[in-house]
């Protein structure tokens, strides 16, 4: 049974009083809106009022301002203004179901700006005590194909409904009738991509901490009015939905999907987790890569620190130090021998076996056949004090067992330097692309006009060059070394 507890949500209002300390800040929020960008900062609003602000997309703290209380807002930039939609109530399976969804505008989301002033909220949808709908959980879509504005709302009690709003005023279009488009979910959001409309919804139990089964599902339709069908052809009006994001990595209760498109091939999804096991089991904002598989959205996975092969998608050779290949000694046996002797496992070559043959200064980097040798194994580790970007921290990439770091040079090539110092040229942004491959970008050139990334100039030659989503030269596979 799902219950939205306004009192506990209101308690979040006290979070802004606490000074931020941690590198990822205090990303505590419930029912976050889609992210919005305003004057170089990111904003998200949550249940109860207020919300989070981030300057880089990685470190989030309280400070966003949204009056009206209530629950589960959404926000959308239309032209130069921001439209915020929210529900006045929190819904409730066991109580009344009278609800109201309202919209209001602001010229900016920055509460410190002299232009910061919300318009009077306008009711755009409602539910009575006794009808098959509970008007909460607003989700907004501005249709890129025709400029029409749509709002979804609803929860487990009854239907998810779709209404049309006027993009100039935020008001309900005169004469528009609500359409039922789904059941069994809440926290809906509408998105459009590549000829398909997608209805994202959250199934499972909300608000149950570490026991919350909340998970995000999707159906799609060629028309915004539906029907929204899942991957086995089941209508969301019959409870269908294909999984987008669930529990994992010590977090449960994924809910309230939002999509942020950074550029072609680079998309993020935002949501909350009901309980982050590493942050006291609290409800937190999460930002994950968004992948697209056969025109279905799927959450990517957060990059785990560890030892990796960094494989070029171009040819499949892997990043390595330009050092001598050191042959391993092997007692060769004829492969057809069958004398019943046990087959002893071969020990892998170790760093100690070869590091004495490496130069001690800068060493060039190239690609070659991957043999899981020490000069080809890279530790990828977050550098908390280096900050981050939307969806991730900056990483250092060092040869496993050493502090020898991958670095970008002034003339946009790559090299390895003997010791990681934390300089910008040794810090790397890593994004999982919509096709599941990775883009690796040096922080050193983060302010370039065109995005510069680690690119295959040839089968065996890495460089720093313009990122091109359409080219396998720009992409990498990160394969965990076991």
């Amino acid at each position, binding site marked *: 049974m799902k219950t939205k507890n306004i009192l506990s949500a209101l308690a979040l209002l006290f979070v802004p009083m606490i000074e931020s300390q941690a590198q990822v800040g205090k990303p505590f929020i419930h029912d976050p809106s889609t992210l919005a960008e305003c004057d170089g900062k990111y904003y998200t609003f949550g249940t109860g009022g207020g919300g989070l602000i981030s300057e880089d997309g990685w470190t989030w703290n309280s400070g966003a301002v949204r009056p009206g209380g209530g629950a589960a807002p959404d926000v959308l930039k239309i032209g130069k203004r921001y439209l915020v939609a929210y529900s006045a109530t929190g819904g409730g399976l066991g109580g009344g179901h009278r609800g109201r969804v309202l919209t209001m505008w602001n010229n900016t989301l920055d509460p410190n700006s002299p232009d910061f002033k919300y318009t009077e909220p306008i009711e755009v949808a409602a539910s009575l005590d006794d009808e098959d709908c509970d008007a909460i959980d607003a989700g907004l879509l501005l249709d890129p194909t025709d400029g029409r504005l749509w709002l979804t709302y609803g929860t487990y009690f009854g239907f998810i409904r779709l209404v049309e709003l006027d993009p100039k005023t935020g008001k309900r279009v005169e004469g528009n009738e609500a359409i039922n488009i789904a059941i069994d979910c809440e926290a809906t959001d509408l998105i459009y991509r590549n000829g398909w409309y997608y209805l994202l919804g959250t199934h499972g139990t909300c608000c149950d901490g570490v026991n919350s089964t909340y998970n995000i599902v999707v159906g799609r339709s060629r028309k915004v009015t539906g029907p929204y069908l899942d991957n086995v052809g089941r209508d969301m009006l019959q409870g269908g939905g294909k999984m987008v994001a669930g529990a994992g990595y010590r977090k449960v209760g994924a809910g309230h999907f939002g999509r942020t498109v950074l550029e072609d091939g680079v998309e993020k999804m935002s949501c909350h987790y009901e309980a982050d096991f590493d942050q006291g089991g609290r409800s937190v904002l999460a930002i994950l890569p968004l992948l697209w598989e056969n025109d279905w959205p799927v959450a990517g996975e957060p990059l785990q620190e560890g030892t990796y092969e960094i494989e070029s998608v171009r040819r499949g050779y892997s990043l390595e130090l330009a050092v*001598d290949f050191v042959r391993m000694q092997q007692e060769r046996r004829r492969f057809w021998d069958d004398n019943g002797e046990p087959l002893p496992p071969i020990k892998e070559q170790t760093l100690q076996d070869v590091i004495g043959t490496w130069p001690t200064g800068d060493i060039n980097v190239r690609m070659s056949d991957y043999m899981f040798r020490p000069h080809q194994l890279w530790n990828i580790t977050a550098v908390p004090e280096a900050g981050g970007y939307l969806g991730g921290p900056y990483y250092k990439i060092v040869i496993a067992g050493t502090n020898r770091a991958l670095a970008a040079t002034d003339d946009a090539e790559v090299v390895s330097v003997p010791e990681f110092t934390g300089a910008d040229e040794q810090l790397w942004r890593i994004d999982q692309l919509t096709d599941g491959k990775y883009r690796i970008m040096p922080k050193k050139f983060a302010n370039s006009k065109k995005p510069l990334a680690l690119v295959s*100039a040839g089968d065996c*030659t890495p460089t720093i060059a313009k990122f091109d989503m359409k080219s396998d030269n720009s992409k990498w596979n990160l394969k965990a070394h076991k």
Partner: protein
Amino acid sequence: MNKFRQLTTFFVGITALFALSSFAPGTATDEESEPVQGPKFEDYFNSVTTPSAAPDNEGFIRRWTVLEPISKPNRSNTVFTDSYLRDAFTTEYFPKQFSVIPRDGMKVKVADQTLSWHAIDSKLFNVKLFRFASGLKKNVYGVLFWAVTVVNSDRDIDDVRLSVGSNSASMWWLNGEEALLLSGDRRMVKDDCMSRRLKLKKGKNILRGAVINGPGMSDFCVRFIDESGNPVTGLTITNK
């Protein structure tokens, strides 16, 4: 039983080998008195008869002056580590090795070998050094080749890359500076390895390469590409 099976397998294998070899093309049988002719030098190379040439339509440079192979025996190509190659390619085998712009027919002495330079136009995008050697009835294995060409540019061009594929390892210099090292036992692959971004000067640019191989089919292909991966235009190739 195991030993019997091993012996049986051995004899069956030997018999099969003989049977196959008697059907292999080009093998002399009792009825034939002469072996079949192998590929000829002219199948792969033309002599240079024009003052300049253009790169081909993919930008590959086909005009070179190539030295008959220096004998450098190696039973295996697994020795071609970076360290081995730096030593092999920085050794001076003949005078002015790193500065000569050779003429067709020039000779050099390397130990007990007298070797000639040949100005050639490859008929292929790649320079099949194996057939250069076999066509001239020289050693084909355990070899080190030197190749020189002159790349003439109609303008200063920044941010070009030297693109090389070679069999096996090789090192390349542009205007006297090391531009690229391809190490390990490798095959000739288009756009295998790239130099850093280089500058081609307006006028003459001397491109020099050394290719080493043990067993296998020595070969290389070379072109210049721009930042988009397209062949650099406005180049003509000469031997001097």
